[in-house]
């Protein structure tokens, strides 16, 4: 067996520095590129899967190719997490933090020619608040009580209780605006105000976009046409880029991205990755024991997991936050680094026998090569401390049911919304504070529920906010029902060598309005 502890010792000591440095290094090329002079043309994009539908409120990854090209959101975030205007020119949060007033742009029209105004925002708020129609926005709308159209360019949104600023901006950054006349048919027919309009779609084969001639952002989109080709195989998309058949690959595998980067192709890693989390069902078997769970903070060979599962593209984390997330704290990756001695101490403190410690199975997503690889890394690591487990391979609906109904001891699963307000973490099943499908009701870790509540109710930007975040981080590693290992990017962008001018999206969606060919 190899000993990664020694090999990666230096990396671990520098993890905090690298955590910040890497994100800057990865983001920097995008900013540099966007500052370059680019000219238009036809952008040819390769994706691996077709879209699910045109509803921008459904954030399936496959839809991320189109959402920010056909639609605009009320606010946007810079890669560093600073809220900036988009369809809303400005926003004013009330002194009591119980409402926000949005001032909207007056020069925006939907693709249909209908004007964008406060009524359109109200119609979208209504859709988002509908449990059947709201899709991924529905949970975010839980803080909203009601809204008032003040005038055609102003809308006030009232909250149920005081809401922290970041949670408010998260809501409006999430909210892409659909033409009210097209809300009922948006799954089949796009109805946005974005930089591009749908020109053609051949299901399973290609999507063509044409520039919106009336787009409100001056000089954009740079490229007049976009041709998106759906490749079923990552290798085919890679070959197409290398042969000059496409200009961009979006959402390919990290293994291919790593190889193409080594071959000199620019790889853009956005600020909104997922975090891989070793999810533990703390209501079952040896995982009821807190010390046993805490040992897993040190049993995760994160460097190996990142390398095997994600070709080294991403970064090591011990908390479920992206570096751009407000609660991100790189020191935890050092404190809770892979360390078999510390793990053995905690295992001894658990009082469990070797047989009890081995009485569980690791469920594995058999259809995901990264999951199969990293699960075998964990299996081999556990064997070194005397824990012998079997892998329980599952796929498709069986896997989904197992995950969502909590019928597992432990499994790996990606967690999203980790670059947003910290309590957004609770939208992921294992981290839910109420109706948790894995841990059940009442929640077995009330200290975690209290820590989320404290984050939700701590207003302002002062030390009390940081204290709330620190408390949440401490509780996360102590309760240890989720052991984060690394960030990884589902929406990695690999480009041809002549393509530039990318705008990085906070959710790693594909944004093409500033993209073109270098002059």
């Amino acid at each position, binding site marked *: *067996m*190899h000993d*990664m502890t020694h*090999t990666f010792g230096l990396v671990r000591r520098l993890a905090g520095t690298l955590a910040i440095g890497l994100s800057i290094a990865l983001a920097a090329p995008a900013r540099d590129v966007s500052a370059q002079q680019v000219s238009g043309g036809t952008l040819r994009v390769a994706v691996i899967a077709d879209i699910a539908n045109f509803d921008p409120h459904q954030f399936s990854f496959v839809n991320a190719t189109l959402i920010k090209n056909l639609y605009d959101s009320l606010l946007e975030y810079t890669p560093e997490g600073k809220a900036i205007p988009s369809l809303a020119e400005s926003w004013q949060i009330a002194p009591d933090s119980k409402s926000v007033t949005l001032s909207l742009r007056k020069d925006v029209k939907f693709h249909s020619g209908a004007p964008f105004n406060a009524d359109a925002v109200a119609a979208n708020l209504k859709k988002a608040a509908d449990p059947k129609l709201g899709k991924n926005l529905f949970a975010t709308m839980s803080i909203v009580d009601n809204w008032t159209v003040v005038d055609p360019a102003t809308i006030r949104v009232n909250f149920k209780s005081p809401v922290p600023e970041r949670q408010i901006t998260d809501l409006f950054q999430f909210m892409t605006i659909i033409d009210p006349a097209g809300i009922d048919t948006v799954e089949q027919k796009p109805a946005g105000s974005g930089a591009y309009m749908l020109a053609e779609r051949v299901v399973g084969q290609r999507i063509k976009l044409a520039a919106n001639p009336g787009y409100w952002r001056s000089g954009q989109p740079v490229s007049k046409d976009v041709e998106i080709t759906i490749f079923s195989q990552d*290798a085919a998309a890679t070959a197409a880029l290398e042969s000059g058949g496409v200009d961009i690959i979006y959402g390919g595998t990290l*293994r291919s991205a790593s*190889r193409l980067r080594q071959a000199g192709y620019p790889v853009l890693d956005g600020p909104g990755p997922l975090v891989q989390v070793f999810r533990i069902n703390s209501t079952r078997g040896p995982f009821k024991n807190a010390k046993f769970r805490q040992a897993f903070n040190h049993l995760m060979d994160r460097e*190996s997991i990142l*390398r*095997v599962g994600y070709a080294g593209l991403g970064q090591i984390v011990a908390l479920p936050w992206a570096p751009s997330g407000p609660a991100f704290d790189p020191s935890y990756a050092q404190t809770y680094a892979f360390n078999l001695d510390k793990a053995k101490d905690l295992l001894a403190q658990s009082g469990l026998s070797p047989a009890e410690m081995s009485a569980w199975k690791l469920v594995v997503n*058999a*259809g995901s*090569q990264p999951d*199969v*690889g990293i699960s*075998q*890394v964990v*299996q*081999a690591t556990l064997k070194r401390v005397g824990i012998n487990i*079997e*892998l*329980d*391979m599952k*796929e498709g609906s069986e896997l989904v049911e197992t995950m969502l109904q909590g019928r597992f001891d432990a499994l790996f699963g990606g967690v999203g919304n980790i670059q947003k307000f910290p309590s957004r973490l609770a939208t992921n099943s294992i981290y839910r504070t109420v109706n948790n499908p894995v841990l059940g009701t009442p929640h077995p870790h009330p200290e975690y529920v209290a820590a989320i509540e404290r984050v939700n109710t701590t207003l302002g930007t002062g030390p009390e906010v940081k204290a709330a975040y620190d408390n949440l981080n401490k509780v996360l590693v102590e309760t240890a029902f989720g052991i984060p290992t690394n960030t990884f990017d589902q929406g990695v962008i690999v480009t041809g060598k002549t393509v530039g001018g990318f705008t990085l999206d906070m959710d790693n969606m594909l944004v093409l309005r500033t993209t073109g060919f270098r002059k």
Partner: protein
Amino acid sequence: MIGSLEAATHIAARVAARPAALAALVFLGALTLLATFAGALGLDPLEQDIVRMLEGPSRDYPFGTDELGRDILARVIFGARTSLATAAGAVLLAAAIGVPIGLVAGFFGGWRDAVLMRVVDLLLALPGIMMALALIAVLGRSQAAALVAVGITGVPTFARVARAQVLSLRRRDFVTAVEAFGATSSYSMFRTILPNSWSPILTQMVVLSSVAILLEAALSFLGVGIPPPTPSWGEMLRTGKEYLHDAPTFAVLPGLALTLTILAFDTLGRALSTVLEGRDTVVPARGNQP
């Protein structure tokens, strides 16, 4: 007929006299030895050396390393153990179920023959891979489940071959004579007819071994075979194809091992059939293939 050690030796010599069959025998013998004594070679198919993952062939790793830095040579050798053990178990299981079915159906005829053969026809109508997938879905993923799934798909072949042999021997004088002396049906079937039916059954066992190895590899390739980290050629092919650009040996070598093994079993089966049945250009029925 193989009635004695002398006869077996004679048949083996006749098979070995055919160059292709001899090469197949040598290959399979070497593979079996390697698979049996793999543990004594000091190779560990599970040891991870992630720093050296996806390396090409080197002195330390003659076949290179896989995505977890494991020795591909070790995994190919231990994969042979998996494939051969699964194939042997599956073929024995198929013969153990299929031969008695064929014996009873052929011996008694009538409604028993009709019922048993319709069941066999039903099994034959289902593509082997589909049946195996369905069985795995019920039994779960494990080596035992793969063995049972592969074995069940071979049952119809043995049943039909055994039935055909019974029908050809049932009215022969030596069977009639035994029955005239008061032999029971069981005695006639298992002590009189079966020993005289071994030639085609043995041929089918060899030929079906190649089918079983292929089917087990296909199940692993589809991700429903033997679960990791147990080495399996099919699983290595499945994973290795993702890394063809980085580490070509990862998929090519297990693929080569699989191809050569199937070719060897097939060649041996054909030679055995030719020798045992006294025909020069016999192509044994492959029965229920994936």
